[in-house]
């Protein structure tokens, strides 16, 4: 079931929300949690019932290990628990990729039958691995099965995050179980946040998607302007798709009296790569920071100080190494393909340059130039993220920068002749009306990307006014008007 599916919007959500709050008031907090866990299982099973067993098995296994870790924080048990989670994820998501690449190294062309990747496996695996580590570290004191199950299975965040840490949910779940918590007080705000997310997904992301698709499907026939148009369109599509999803998740959480963390903070306003990664997919960055980057970086940095390494050696080993490892994992987390590894590598490169710039105290570039360089790096990484293969991605980049591909469409022949630029009938920009529509969408979405805030602190300041009612209704009306064919979310594949 998708958040933008009419079955979810008009049947599942109203019924579950009503039953949840009715149960919470009439029967009690625990009963309402049982209800939402059951509803979340239905939500997950709607897509592919047999994989419910995998989700349930994962929850039961991880709860048992957590329970043992709380009694006896053994390193061996933690490693066993983590490896089991990673092995399951590896089997479904990475087995074919690694086997095919081992085959290639041995000069063989092994082809394997495609394995169906269970929905949300990357998300619920990460969330539970983090919980095992926190239980081992003593960050969690005790945990009840119902709290654990709600934490993992809760449908607003089950499929594609935000990646929540147990310690930030602990008190909320206890309050919910005890019949306290936010109750219905956040419901209205949740509805507005959900509508904003639905609008971003259906009216913005899905409207620009065909333009991006049309460019990425003909990588070897593009001209410079078409390649740039397609890449900018995709850069906007992925932001509105994923931040729209995240807003819907946060809004749904509020409707059930649960505050989920935000995932985005106006990322396309970032003026450096460091700034960008503080604003983009915040909960994933936090996970990688806490459990991969920081431990490695701290370990090597301590060594560097102890052994009095030179600044260059320290930078190479204590700064570059953890960034490369983190983004290699991050790339592969997004998908088992070399395109995702390069996506990670481009981001790592951008961050390394950014850190080197700061370490050697080079003059700070002006804000606009910083923004331009950041967006260029982000867009380059997203070309690999979106393209079907590395060859296509390289072709698109080549056509964006090689002057040979600067060709005007035939309907601009007058200006092309005037400027001495060649022209012909183009594949994507074949008609003026199509191109102008695409340019119009891009300009509108750039403005939206730069002004539509997504911080809950901003959202919680929202007061019910006539203006808010009109703008929310307009967004809902537009989103529902476009809701003919619910499209899936980009991040569901991870």
């Amino acid at each position: 079931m998708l958040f933008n599916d009419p079955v979810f919007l008009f049947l599942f959500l109203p019924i579950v929300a009503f039953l949840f709050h009715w149960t919470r008031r009439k029967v009690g907090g625990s009963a309402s949690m049982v209800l939402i866990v059951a509803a979340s299982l239905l939500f997950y099973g709607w897509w592919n019932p047999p994989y419910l067993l995998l989700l349930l098995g994962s929850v039961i296994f991880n709860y048992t290990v957590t329970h043992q870790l709380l009694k006896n924080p053994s390193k061996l048990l933690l490693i066993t628990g983590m490896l089991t989670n990673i092995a399951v994820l590896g089997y479904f998501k990475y087995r074919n990729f690694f086997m095919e690449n081992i085959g290639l190294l041995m000069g063989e062309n092994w082809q394997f039958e495609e394995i169906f990747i269970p929905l949300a496996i990357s998300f619920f695996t990460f969330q539970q691995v983090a919980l095992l580590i926190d239980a081992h570290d003593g960050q969690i004191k005790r945990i009840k099965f119902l709290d654990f199950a709600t934490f993992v299975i809760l449908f607003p965040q089950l499929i594609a995050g935000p990646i929540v840490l147990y310690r930030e949910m602990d008190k909320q779940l206890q309050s919910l179980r005890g019949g306290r918590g936010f109750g219905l007080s956040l419901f209205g705000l949740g509805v507005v946040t959900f509508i904003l997310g639905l609008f971003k997904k259906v009216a913005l992301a899905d409207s620009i998607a065909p333009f991006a698709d049309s460019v990425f499907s003909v990588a070897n026939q593009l001209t410079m302007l078409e390649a740039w148009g397609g890449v900018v369109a995709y850069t906007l599509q992925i932001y509105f798709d994923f931040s729209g999803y995240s807003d819907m998740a946060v809004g749904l959480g509020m409707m059930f009296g649960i505050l989920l963390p935000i995932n985005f903070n106006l990322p396309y306003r970032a003026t450096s790569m460091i700034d960008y990664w503080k604003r983009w997919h915040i909960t994933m960055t936090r996970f990688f920071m806490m459990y991969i980057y920081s431990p490695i970086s701290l370990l090597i940095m301590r060594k560097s100080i102890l052994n009095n390494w030179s600044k260059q050696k320290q930078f190479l080993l204590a700064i570059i190494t953890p960034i490369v490892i983190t983004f290699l994992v991050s790339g592969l987390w997004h998908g088992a393909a070399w395109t995702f590894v390069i996506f990670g590598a481009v981001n790592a490169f951008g961050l390394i340059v950014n850190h080197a710039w700061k370490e050697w105290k080079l003059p700070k570039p002006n804000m606009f130039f910083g923004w331009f360089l950041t967006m260029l790096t982000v867009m380059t990484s997203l070309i690999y993220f979106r393209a079907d293969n590395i060859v296509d991605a390289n072709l698109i980049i080549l056509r964006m920068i090689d002057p040979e591909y600067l060709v005007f469409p035939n309907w601009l022949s007058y200006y092309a002749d005037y400027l001495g630029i060649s022209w012909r009938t183009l594949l994507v920009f074949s008609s003026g009306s199509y191109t102008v529509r695409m340019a119009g969408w891009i300009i509108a979405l750039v403005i939206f990307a730069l002004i539509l805030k997504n911080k809950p602190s901003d959202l919680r300041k929202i007061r019910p006014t006539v203006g808010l009612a009109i703008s929310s209704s307009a967004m809902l009306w537009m989103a529902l008007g476009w809701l003919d064919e619910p499209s899936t979310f980009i991040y569901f594949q991870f």
Partner: protein
Amino acid sequence: MENKEILKILNDVFQEVFDDETLILTRETTANDIEEWDSLNQIKLIIESERALNIRLKSRDINILENIGEMVDHLSKVIN
């Protein structure tokens, strides 16, 4: 060691790491208040705090803290 004293030592550490002598920490200061606070500076803060207070910290313990007040409380627990 008193929390006030820890905050003062922490203030010196922050001034050194961020190369800003005008930086004044309060218990309410968060990472969002200091523009230059990034993943690398976070590691440097841990290392310099360890050196200044002669303690050993875990990166995850620091990463989860919400503000300087929580950091002072955590350091106080480790020291005492």
